[in-house]
């Protein structure tokens, strides 16, 4: 039987196992929305802004490992989605975005709601397609999911002109697909892996520096096994938090600009650095000239272009993290850890424990003003470290990363690469849909939350009981911090005046609102909010306006040149 392009799209998504489609209708996608109405396999989630659709799909993908799927209309629908697409691209999140397009015969005519979606998104997608013939549609969808999920994952966009969604053809969804120009490497080179293992066994002061790649490849268990077998210290990037249990003795905390003293000092003094699924981002390395001066570097990454991009490495290994770690473990199963190394490690741990004794994340909670760190710490305690935590971008994001100790992967959901304010709430919607019975907390600030606050309406429509933890310091905190440090406290445009009563605002959206002003009320409020299992609770914590994120490595400094307090 022949199906319309719109029906083919719905059938293909169902056959691909897609459960949720995050989207917003418009003229160019009306045939598709009609097809959605006539089927019940894929559930459409109606957001309030296309950016939120992409972030929600992204949160769904980050928390499940399955691709997030988005449907938006042409023109402004597509441009609104771009921020979310770029966010997913920077963090290598698998996503398939379908944008409506004006009919093929009008493309290029400056038609109503026409924009060159393929052109606009080209630099921020893994790949994109314009489908001009309905006969190519099913195969293109199959290709899109294949590309999004394999190799280094990322968003793939399909631009679908309106006439193609009306045209008909026979529906066959391909079982398998082979793209002759796309065969990402999976297995690491055996000789390189052997070389790496030898180097690891020679190390006196090793550090495992691991990133989002471990989470994306679901390879945490192998990382834990490797680290514990060798008694090596582990530090995670912002994107890698949860890949190694944060409450374990061998965990040094996050590294980089706002990383811990022990993590950054260990990086500076290491002699063998084992980088796994991390990409030597500038927020991690600080000044490249001063980065890991004594280290030989092993780098495992699925993307060859990430290797020796910022830092030249000694042993490059291209392959999926899980497969390479398994190969390393197999070699280590046959090798005996040299007694010399065990002794050296005892010394190394002694040194690390001295750094750790600095207790660089300590803070004092007085009686009067709520410290933002305290709220996150209490959140961690009350949720027993087992919540899904999304965040926006800024000081609250760093506090969440530092004080919420993630013991499991895929629990920490944040925009690491692009640093997208407005990410947290819509991402939490995707996470909550994927995990209806779990606690999902969105740690945010009064600046970030206002960038997508309209999604409180979506949360009501789909009964998403997210706990919004807003650390409200009436400042764009991270901007304020940089202005204090580097612009002689000239607080240009970082003060948020004319804020709404967030609690009342949440109430007017049909949720529960709370305003917490005293340190003594923090714990009780959090406990009460967590008890409201089926309600969204917006918690407006009035926090210290002058608090800064420490430690901090100023731009241009090395990892051993931290500002501690």
């Amino acid at each position, binding site marked *: 039987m022949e199906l319309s392009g719109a029906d083919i799209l719905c059938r293909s998504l169902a056959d691909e196992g897609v459960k949720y489609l995050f989207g917003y209708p418009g003229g160019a996608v009306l045939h598709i929305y009609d097809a959605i109405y006539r089927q019940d396999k894929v559930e459409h989630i109606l957001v309030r802004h296309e950016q939120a659709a992409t972030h929600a799909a992204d949160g769904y993908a980050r928390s499940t490992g399955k691709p997030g799927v988005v449907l938006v209309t042409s023109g402004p629908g597509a441009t609104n989605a771009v921020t979310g697409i770029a966010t997913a691209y920077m963090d290598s999140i698998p996503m398939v975005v379908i944008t409506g397009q004006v009919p093929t015969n009008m493309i290029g005519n400056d038609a109503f709601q026409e924009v060159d979606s393929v052109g606009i998104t*080209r630099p921020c997608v893994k790949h994109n397609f314009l489908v001009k013939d309905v006969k190519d549609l099913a195969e293109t969808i199959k290709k899109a999911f294949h590309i999004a999920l394999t190799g280094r994952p990322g968003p793939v966009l399909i631009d679908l002109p309106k006439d193609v969604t009306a045209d008909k053809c026979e529906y066959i969804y391909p079982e398998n697909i082979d793209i002759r120009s796309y065969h990402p490497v999976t297995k690491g080179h055996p000789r390189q892996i052997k070389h790496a293992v030898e180097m690891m066994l020679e190390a006196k002061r090793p550090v495992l520096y691991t990133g989002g790649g471990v989470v994306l490849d679901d390879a945490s268990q192998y990382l834990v096994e490797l680290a514990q077998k060798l008694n090596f210290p582990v530090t995670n990037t912002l994107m890698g938090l949860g890949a190694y249990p944060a409450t374990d003795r061998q965990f040094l905390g996050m590294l980089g600009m706002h990383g811990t003293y022990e993590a950054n000092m260990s990086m500076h003094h290491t002699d063998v650095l084992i980088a796994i699924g991390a990409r030597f981002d500038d927020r991690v390395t600080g000044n490249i000239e001063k980065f890991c001066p004594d280290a030989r570097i092993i780098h495992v990454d699925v*993307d060859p272009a990430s290797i020796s991009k910022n830092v030249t490495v000694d042993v490059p290994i291209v392959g999926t993290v899980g497969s390479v770690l398994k190969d390393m473990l197999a070699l280590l199963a046959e090798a005996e850890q040299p007694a010399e190394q065990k002794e050296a490690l005892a010394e190394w741990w002694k040194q690390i424990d001295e750094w750790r004794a600095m207790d660089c994340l300590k803070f004092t909670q007085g009686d009067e003003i709520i410290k933002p760190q305290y709220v996150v710490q209490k959140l961690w305690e009350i949720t027993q470290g087992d919540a899904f935590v999304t965040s926006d971008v800024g000081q609250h994001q760093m506090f969440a990363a530092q004080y919420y100790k993630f013991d499991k992967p895929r629990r920490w959901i944040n925009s690491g690469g692009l640093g997208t304010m407005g990410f947290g709430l819509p991402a939490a919607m995707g996470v909550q849909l994927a995990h209806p019975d779990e606690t999902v907390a969105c740690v945010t600030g009064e600046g970030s939350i206002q960038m997508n606050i309209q999604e409180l309406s979506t949360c009501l429509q789909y009964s998403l009981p997210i706990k919004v933890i807003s650390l409200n310091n009436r400042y764009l905190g991270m901007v304020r911090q940089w202005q204090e440090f580097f612009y002689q406290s000239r607080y240009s445009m970082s003060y948020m005046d004319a804020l709404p009563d967030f609690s009342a605002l949440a109430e007017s959206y049909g949720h529960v609102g709370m305003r917490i002003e005293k340190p003594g009320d923090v714990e009780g409020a959090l406990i009460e909010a967590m008890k409201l299992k089926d309600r969204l609770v917006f918690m407006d914590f009035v926090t210290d306006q002058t608090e800064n994120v420490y430690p901090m490595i100023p731009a241009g400094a090395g990892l051993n040149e931290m500002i501690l307090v």
Partner: protein
Amino acid sequence: MRHIISILLENEAGALSRVAGLFSARGYNIESLTVAPTEDPSLSRMTLVTRGSDQIIEQITKQLNKLIEVVKLIDLVEGEHVERELMLIKVVAATAEDRNEVKRLVDIFRGNIVDVTTTTYTIELTGTGDKLEGFMAALADVKILETVRSGVSGILRGEKSLHI
């Protein structure tokens, strides 16, 4: 150092702009770029001349390889290769003296005069970039009306070839 990157890519709309976009987005320079279909109509062959340190060239080839439409590529300067560029050049040749002089130079450089008017010659010349520039330098006393260069095309010497 100068590199000639030879690329086989899917002959699809948008493939060229993906390559060009990559260079502008990452700040790599393109000295010349040529592209045309091959004997297999589903494939295009692109020759791209760029300059950069070894590290930059490594990044360029890795980033190009990441593009889904790029099937295969090689850096021709890593081995023995032949490179050629086509130039069409229109000059003023109005006097007998000029016409003789230009004709003589064209013969020396093994070019062809492909179009003639009473006042102009249009010359076709093929060779390496150096040869084309040498020819233009030799025309110093002749007024050049316009030049069109194809950009470099290149191919490996010997039995090795870039194919799927």
